[in-house]
């Protein structure tokens, strides 16, 4: 653990000193010691906020994400209500202290775009038609950012929606793939995202084989892109298993407590 911490510090120093020379070493090991197709350690917990109807917390590498869900409830402002379905109001927001240089808490253009694409990634999963004229509020707070926060946000938001008891077709799970030093990698961390050649975030509903978010920036050939999507989908499937586990474990804990 101690050794680990030291390494992290060194890394951070390296990061701030401009571009690291190599993101991947000769043996195919990445800056944080991962293999090309290895995810960062993921931890999830549901039902973490007492006031929210549903909530979840996730750590993925150094990402720390908290999501609270309220509703379905009366839509505000009223003109956003739809006669035949619920609307999702989604806010993706980064805490000012979540990044190296303080981020203004006012929504940036990036935040506005991400709020939109995250909402559109979640909508296909929810049976919106069950709750006409209402609104489901999804508040995503990035407490600490380390690359791939939109994916982490989606994974966490899906858990929070499920925790709120809102009927869904499947959980939505997200993971990015990309390219660095000419190699395809999965689950990019901050430096790989910034210095690397491409980033392809994907959100996926495994049971329906449905891709609900797909973005890309960088430069990939068509073959590389298709492989990257495959890698991201594989990553999604791994996280999906953990997601289900996290949902179940909430109730397991309650049962055990009752037995005692």
């Amino acid at each position: 653990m101690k050794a680990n911490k030291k390494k992290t510090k060194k890394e951070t120093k390296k990061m701030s000193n401009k571009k690291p020379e190599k993101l991947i070493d000769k043996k195919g090991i990445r800056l944080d010691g991962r293999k090309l197709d290895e995810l960062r350690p993921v931890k999830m917990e549901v039902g973490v906020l007492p006031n929210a109807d549903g909530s979840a917390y996730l750590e993925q590498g150094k990402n720390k994400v908290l999501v609270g869900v309220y509703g379905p409830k009366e839509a505000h402002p009223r003109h956003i209500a739809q006669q035949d379905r619920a609307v999702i109001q989604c806010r993706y927001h980064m805490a000012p202290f979540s990044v190296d240089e303080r981020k203004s808490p006012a929504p940036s253009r990036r935040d506005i775009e991400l709020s939109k694409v995250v909402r559109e990634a979640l909508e296909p999963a929810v049976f919106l038609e069950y709750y006409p004229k209402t609104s489901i509020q999804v508040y995503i707070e990035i407490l600490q950012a380390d690359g791939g926060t939109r994916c982490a946000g989606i994974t966490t938001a899906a858990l929070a929606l499920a925790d709120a008891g809102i009927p869904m077709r499947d959980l939505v799970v997200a993971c990015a793939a990309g390219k660095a030093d000419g190699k395809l990698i999965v689950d990019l961390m901050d430096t790989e995202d910034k210095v690397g050649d491409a980033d392809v975030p994907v959100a996926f509903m495994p049971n329906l084989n449905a891709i609900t978010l797909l973005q890309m920036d960088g430069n990939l050939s068509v073959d590389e892109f298709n492989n990257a999507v495959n890698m991201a989908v594989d990553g999604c499937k791994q996280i999906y298993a953990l997601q289900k586990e996290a949902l179940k474990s909430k109730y397991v804990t309650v049962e055990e407590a009752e037995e005692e």
Partner: protein
Amino acid sequence: MTDSVVVRVKKKRIAELLESEKRVDERGLTDYREIQIESGVIERAEGSARVHLGKTDVVVGVKIGTGTPFPDVPDKGVLTVNAELVPLASPDFEPGPPGEKAVELARVVDRGIRESKAIDLEKLCVESGKLVFVVFIDVYVLNHDGNLIDASAMAALAALINTKMFKYEVKDGKIVKKPGYTPLPIINYPIAVTFAKIGNKLILDTGLDEEQVMDARLTMTMTKDGNICAIQKGGGSGYFTQEEIVEATKIAQKKTKELRKLVVKS
């Protein structure tokens, strides 16, 4: 959009037609409407272009300013893209600060130009870390009849190709204009194509009718080498399967080539 009976009737009709590979305006599934590209429409701007895609009408103006570079890239000029959904363009557009649609439009156009490295930003550095040129690309939607992304991306590229920079010299860290102009250093030609999924069909260049009933939208921007440089999925509560995305990349490769010829020629 969802409450109206008209939309539901429209959707049914459009989907039925698509089953037999037909569209409301009798185009093929991957056909574009008539494209008109006119460059240099605004003399005051350093570069400009107006694109008609059927009845969709977008004008893009490029202005060149000066500013300080971002600290992490001190040797590069700055690129900014802004989009205005002007209220006169559609009954659905309202005055006020850009909403999420406008922000998304601007950012998708921006991503295509930035990630394809269309502009040689290093040539826009005057003094490292202190003084660089800023390229302002302003997308102005004048009439909305669907597929704003492709029209805007095309207009932006045409406007960049059309952009002339004044010649200058540096005196005491200040820019002094000299007579004459040089073209903006454009080294790649990104083209965006936007697919709409309706039922299980993928179509290109949606009209407003089709856009209102589509399940999901997918934009792919490709470089002149046929590589992908930007992707955005959006527009509604539908999704794509992996197979559909593979199919889309194939169509996009062909289509972006055709469109690029039109834009670069103009």
